[in-house]
């Protein structure tokens, strides 16, 4: 199987008054296409930071990061942004939907930045609404949905650009167990049927075990 991303000695730190604080330290990772990875570790161990760096939302200070064969550490901001927007989907614990937009508009939002025509966008949105069984909710605003439904919309939004990699930061953290189960079912389905590579950050042992392997972080280092 092809390698989707690979890091070598990836390190990130911030300097504050008490000296240098390492957020990530010497991370060496190789993830193959189609893998379902769970990242675990206590609060402050660097899980979210790792996810943000892999998703190119954040930068790192040292080391190398190769994404689908491209050396991210040498790319310019604009090239990184292109790489990110065509290949990576994000899912957040707090859903991060735009309050002023309807469900359909929220899902459509990423396509606006792909230069897609209106007709194609509408078709794509209709498609995914159908697939997620939320056609009836398309004109509602996020505030009118339950947490599980909002996260469903968040996942739909992440998937509409057909990403190679799905990054999920505690996707079930704000949900009750039943809703959480449903979301995890969906992840497995996406991973197995559509071959989407998934990296999820989670606190739950049970959810973590749904993945192919678990990476454990402590103080910015991979311990397992």
């Amino acid at each position, binding site marked *: 199987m092809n390698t989707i991303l690979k890091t070598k000695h990836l390190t990130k730190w911030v300097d504050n008054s008490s000296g240098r604080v390492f957020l990530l330290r010497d991370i060496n990772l190789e993830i193959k296409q189609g893998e379902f990875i769970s990242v675990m570790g206590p609060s402050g161990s660097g899980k979210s930071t790792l996810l943000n760096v892999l998703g190119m*939302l954040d930068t790192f200070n040292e080391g190398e990061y190769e994404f689908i064969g491209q050396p991210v550490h040498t790319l310019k901001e604009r090239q990184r942004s292109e790489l990110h927007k065509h290949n990576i989907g994000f899912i957040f614990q707090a859903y*991060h939907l735009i309050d002023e937009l309807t469900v359909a508009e929220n899902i459509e939002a990423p396509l606006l*930045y792909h230069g897609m025509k209106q007709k194609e966008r509408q078709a794509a949105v209709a498609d995914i609404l159908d697939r997620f069984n939320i056609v009836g909710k398309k004109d509602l605003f996020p505030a009118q949905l339950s947490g599980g439904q909002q996260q469903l919309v968040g996942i739909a939004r992440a998937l509409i650009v057909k990403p190679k990699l799905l990054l999920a930061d505690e996707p079930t953290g704000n949900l009750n167990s039943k809703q959480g189960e449903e979301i995890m079912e969906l992840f497995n389905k996406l991973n197995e049927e559509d071959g989407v590579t998934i990296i999820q950050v989670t606190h739950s042992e049970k959810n973590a075990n749904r993945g192919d392997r678990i990476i454990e972080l402590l103080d910015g280092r991979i311990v397992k």
Partner: protein
Amino acid sequence: MFYNLKIAIRNLRRNGLYSVINIIGLTVSLATCILITLWVYDEWSYDRFHANKENIYLVNTSVSNEGFFDHTPGALSVYGKEEIPVIKDYCRISWFSFNYLRYNDRQVLIDNSINRGAAVDSSFFRMFTFPLIEGDIQKPFAGDNSIIFSESMAKSVFGDENPMGRAVRTNWSDEYFYVTGIMEDMPKNSTLQYDYIVPMNFMKRHWVSYFVPGKTLDEDFGEFRFSTYLELYPGSHTDEIEEQIVNIVGREMAPYASMFGPAGLPPFNISLQQITDQHLYNPDGTPGGMAKIRLFAVIAGLILVIACINYVNLVTARIGKRSKEMGIRKFLGANWIKIVRQAMQETCVMLFISIVLATVLIYVVMPVYNQISGKNMEFSLFSFHAAIIYGVTLFCVLVLAGLYPSLFLASSNSSKHTKNKGMHVVFRKALVVVQFVCSIVLIVSTLVITLQMNFIRKKDLGYDKENVICFPAWGMGNNKEAVRNELQKNPDITGVATADFENMITHNFTYGVTWQGSDIATRFSMGWFDFDFFDVMNIRLTDGAFPLEASADKYCLLNETAVREMQLQEDPLNQIINFNNQSYTVSGIVRDFHFESLSQPILPMILICSKANYNNFYIRTTTQGTKSALASIETMWKKYCPNLIFSYSFLDENFERLYEADIQMGKLLYIFAFIAIMISCLGLFGLVTFTAETKTKEIGIRKVLGASVGNIINMLSKEFLILVGIAMLIAFPLAYYWLNNMLQDYAYRISIGWWIFVLAGLITIVLTLLTVGFQALKAATANPVKSIKTE
């Protein structure tokens, strides 16, 4: 009370940026409004200090339906008072000047451009409120050779001596004049401005009637030389009086109708103008100064409105942040009156700070403002006017900018808030559109007025006004050849000519011109020149030739307009025209040139060339040679006019001076427009800062979804650009309509091209983008990871 005050000040400090924006906006607009109001008040106050102002009227006349002007013949008021019972009194005023005064051994030269003189009827001090420090208001002149000085002029002539009863010798046939009164200096806001006054009886004694030889000044209907003021009994109908005067003039002129050719007497009209309207309206009743007052009042209003809108917008925009506090207060038992009071108190604190700063600002800029506006206005914080201005402004700001946001705050509670949000956003947007409309109208106006001013300044006048020095001939007139020869020795002087024109302007005209086929009395301006004049001034002939010197008195020239208006059937050359009981043959046609203000079209003109001596010299110099030319002229002046102040002027500067008021207005407009636009931008900056602040999270999410920096800036600016677009649609027709109206005042005007609107639109868009862009860029480049965490 004190508790609220404490909270209010704390709130202002906490919202630093918004407080600063509001205070700067309010300060600048308050100061500007007060400065404009001072200007407007100063203009409006002209001639209002006369106790009798309700009943004093200026007589304006019009001949041949050619527009009113404020000159009348001397007999008009004398006959009028005799026959029309509602006329209580009259006062005629004629310019009158001495060139020097001698007192004992001292000689004082008078510069008549600074110290002006007049001959007036003895009713002068009764009718007008010009208090006498010494002398008798009822009987100010003891005899024909009386003179009354202003206080400051008396001081410069007599020093510390008491001038009353002293004799001064004048250049009027060396006659003596006796001081019979001292008047206070005339106030600056008086249209009448004189420093010395002699009785009309003196002028009467020396009167020579050119129109009907033998007539006295009181009987002469021919020469339009006097400004005539009538005092009417209260409640008189001016239109009846106007009609009666017209009838009198018609009756008295009837015997001389034949002098005007076959058409007979030209139509004659009178219009009485109240003295308080004299400064603000043209003699024909159209608003001259009044238009400016209205313009400036509107600008002051706009600036105030723009600042108030800033205030309202920033306060309501931030309501979301305050509604929680208000909700808790209501929960704790505050009723809406208390909440409104607290919000109003915040407004008051802000206003108080703004007023203090505005007052400081006014004192600081006052000298510059006076210089630019050419006035001598004073601002005193404790004067009655300042109190009124502050009071009115305060009231407006409080009501407009304070009450609405306060009520808004009071009525908002968290559940209602979300529902009403949409409506208030629309309201806010509407206010921003109003602001932009104001700004765009001001930008377009500034552009158009600047273009018009430049157009006038650069307009081809038909002659070359650069490098020409003008000065009166006086004693040099009789020694023209000698002066000319002497001046021409200076290589920097390239031409010497004389004319009866003063500074290329003539007020000499006649209706008594006839020619073959003439049917209606036409007004012809008259000009007399020597043979060098056209060469010196670069005025060209379009046809024919100058007459020969020997037979020059039989020939005349016409300007192109005259040829057009005379509607001659045949070649105008060699046509015979008659005036002043003489016949002249047209020898040539002169290209049209301007001899009046450019607000007037070129009128028909008869030009007569001769070797005679005229009153004004025109000297053309080389570009670098002005200084040496002036030295030569001064030498001549000292030789031939030792008793006169050396006075000269540059033709191009005289020309500029004609438009001084317009240029000053243009400059003020520039400044005020700039301020208005800056205040709008300030408000816009506040709004976009706020928008960016509230959208931090959304921007972060969008960046995660793949939005580029450009996408984000676009998103933030688009909202405002749409508002700009709507504002343009409203502002352009508005600006076009009123500027087109304004330009009608100019005989020579630019047309308002579409590109002016394009330019104004671009300026607005660029200004908007600059204002919005900075904050938008800041928001767009923020790290999305951090933005998303903001919760």
